[in-house]
């Protein structure tokens, strides 16, 4: 917010300083949000959505479908943030495809799985909403034009006790984002503005309710800045009124070089992440400044299926999560032994990989499997992984061992034992749940060829954020009640997944609570 353009209020007098503001420097802590008396509105909408990812577009689609005039603000040039570079996997507990393939599931089982991965600190009432409404939300996404590989056996993701994940038609979140953006844009009075940066909330005259936002059009994100949120001054100022309220769906902060390191000093500014470069904390921090309650901010999830051999998310996560990890193994290259349940939750696996990497930063573990270990849904990605060199293919285990400098005899012994356990239906040393599927067969087919991917955890999802209730209303630290006119959904919220989110539950969370916000605003 500009000092020149807008008058400042005495933040202390109005008493709307949130807990988050305490983390800011003294001079910034005085910069409270402007009130409607301080500004002149350039345009007026019913609903303003900040962010154009899964949560923002689900919220906007639902609100627009109800006949409301919706403005979506997206700071980046591209639509969709992390969602449009996401792998398109959507956990739908108790879905129709599961029934078709005889997989028994329930909302209760989903919640149990999520609590186990989340170390029990999840806000269960939020999981209940996801468990109850995921199938309905899936149908709403399809109605908005999203396309999925429906009618196939659902994919089995780590930490889930059954296969319950449905993947989009193109294995990317774009099969949801593109049609949903088009769905909103063609409804009367609705608009999506890219390169438009949300700067601050505009409060009611008494400072209690959110009635609009200040923003900058023609803003250009600058990845060379340490903190784009603080340093970037590009663009022209605009003020938008939101008659019914604002839905904050600005995503997580895995790429906020300053804020993520404050939460976890091990994540240095140069650390690669799976996220797009605009995934920063700025919008969330503005909500803290008007009183939103922070929850679980320092739980930053790292993806255990990423590879040091490519930048960002890349292709490795598909080939491991829906491939090598399911029936194959991951081994410590120093001794050829397994060191984790390859299908455990993300935190358990990332921690296990870090135990090795902290002892020897170059000893990247290797995921190993054969062609049969890949899900049908990722066949198309196999060649891509090989061509880019992230995945390597070997005719024999000896060749694979030589390439990764793994003791060959130890590796062969590991795989022999693993295959025997799987074939005999005996529980393996790490109690891997997906081996139930290969009883009587070779999990890793010894005829080869063998595939390998080196592993390195990367920051992926920031578990913490604003506290919302089951109606997606943001809760105030000043009143413990909803802040009138402020809703939020998706990664900017916290608590739902506790310490660690299960794979394919981000789309579920974002779409379900986006839709809920769009219904209630």
């Amino acid at each position: 917010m500009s000092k020149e353009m807008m008058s400042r209020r005495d933040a202390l007098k109005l008493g709307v300083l949130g807990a988050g503001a305490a983390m800011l420097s003294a001079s910034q802590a005085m910069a409270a949000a402007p009130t409607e008396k301080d500004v002149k509105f350039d345009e007026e909408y019913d609903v303003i959505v900040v962010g154009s990812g899964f949560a923002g577009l689900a919220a906007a689609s639902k609100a627009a479908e109800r006949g409301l005039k919706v403005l979506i603000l997206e700071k980046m040039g591209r639509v969709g943030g992390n969602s449009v570079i996401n792998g398109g996997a959507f956990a739908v507990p108790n879905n129709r495809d599961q029934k078709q393939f005889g997989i028994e599931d329930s909302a209760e089982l989903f919640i149990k799985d999520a609590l186990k991965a989340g170390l029990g600190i999840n806000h269960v009432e939020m999981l209940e909403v996801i468990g109850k409404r995921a199938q309905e939300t899936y149908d709403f996404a399809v109605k908005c034009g999203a396309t999925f590989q429906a009618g196939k056996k659902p994919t089995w993701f780590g930490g889930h006790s059954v296969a319950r994940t449905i993947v989009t038609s193109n294995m990317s979140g774009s099969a949801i984002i593109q049609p949903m953006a088009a769905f909103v844009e063609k409804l009367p009075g609705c608009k999506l503005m890219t390169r438009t940066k949300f700067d601050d909330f505009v409060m009611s005259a008494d400072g209690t309710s959110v009635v609009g936002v200040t923003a900058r059009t023609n803003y250009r994100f600058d990845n060379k800045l340490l903190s784009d949120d603080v340093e970037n001054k590009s663009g022209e100022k605009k003020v938008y009124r939101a008659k019914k309220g604002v839905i904050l769906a600005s995503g997580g902060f895995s790429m906020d070089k300053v804020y993520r390191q404050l939460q976890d000093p091990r994540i240095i500014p140069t650390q690669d992440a799976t996220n797009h470069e605009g995934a920063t904390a700025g919008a969330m921090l503005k909500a803290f400044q008007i009183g939103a309650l922070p929850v679980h901010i320092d739980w930053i999830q790292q993806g255990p299926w990423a590879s040091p051999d490519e930048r960002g998310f890349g292709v490795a996560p598909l080939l491991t999560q829906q491939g090598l990890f399911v029936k194959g193994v991951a081994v410590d290259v120093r001794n050829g032994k397994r060191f984790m349940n390859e299908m455990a939750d993300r935190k358990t696996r990332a921690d296990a990989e870090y135990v090795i990497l902290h002892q020897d930063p170059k000893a990247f573990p290797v995921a190993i499997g054969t062609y049969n270990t890949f899900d049908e849904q990722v066949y198309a990605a196999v060649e891509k992984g090989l061509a880019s060199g992230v995945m390597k293919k070997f005719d024999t285990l000896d060749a694979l061992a030589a390439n990764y400098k793994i003791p060959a005899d130890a590796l062969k012994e590991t795989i022999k034992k693993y295959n025997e356990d799987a074939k005999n239906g005996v529980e393996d040393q790490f109690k891997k749940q997906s081996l139930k599927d290969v009883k009587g067969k070779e999990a890793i087919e010894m005829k080869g060829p063998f595939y390998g991917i080196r592993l390195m955890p990367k920051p992926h999802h920031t578990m913490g954020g604003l506290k919302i209730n089951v109606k997606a209303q943001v809760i105030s630290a000043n009143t413990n009640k909803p802040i009138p006119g402020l809703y939020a959904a998706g990664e900017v919220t916290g608590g739902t997944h506790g310490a660690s989110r299960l794979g394919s539950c981000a789309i579920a969370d974002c779409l379900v609570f986006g839709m809920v916000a769009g219904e209630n605003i």
Partner: protein
Amino acid sequence: MRSKKTLFSIGVFLLLSAMSLIGSEAATPSPAKEIPISAEMKEKFPIKAHHAKLSLKCTDCHENQGDNPENFKLIGDEGCLSCHKSKVYLAERLKFMDTLHVNPHNSIHDGPKLYCDECHFEHQKSDNMCLSCHSNDVKLWMRETP
């Protein structure tokens, strides 16, 4: 993007038109005052080889922006597309890359919707946005971004 200053002599206009036809139909004549391009300016605002070949002048792109290059503004998608037609047209030209889902003008993620200057920069090195996630794949997919 058209200049309102059309009262220049028809002779000059026709001469420029003829010159631009030799170069390419893309080079729209600009009746604005010609800005002499010094060696210093060439270094400060280098242009891409394919545009230099067409003898493009500053004001061919920076229309109605005065005659001081220091004050020129970005021309935006509208500027690029005044010669390059449309994003859908550009996507069509690279349709053969759709087979492997690697058409940068019609990607799986964005379709034919990205801003031109997510990747292409005229006065500095272009930056292929695909690289931010597909660091290993891009070299298999395409040449350096023009």
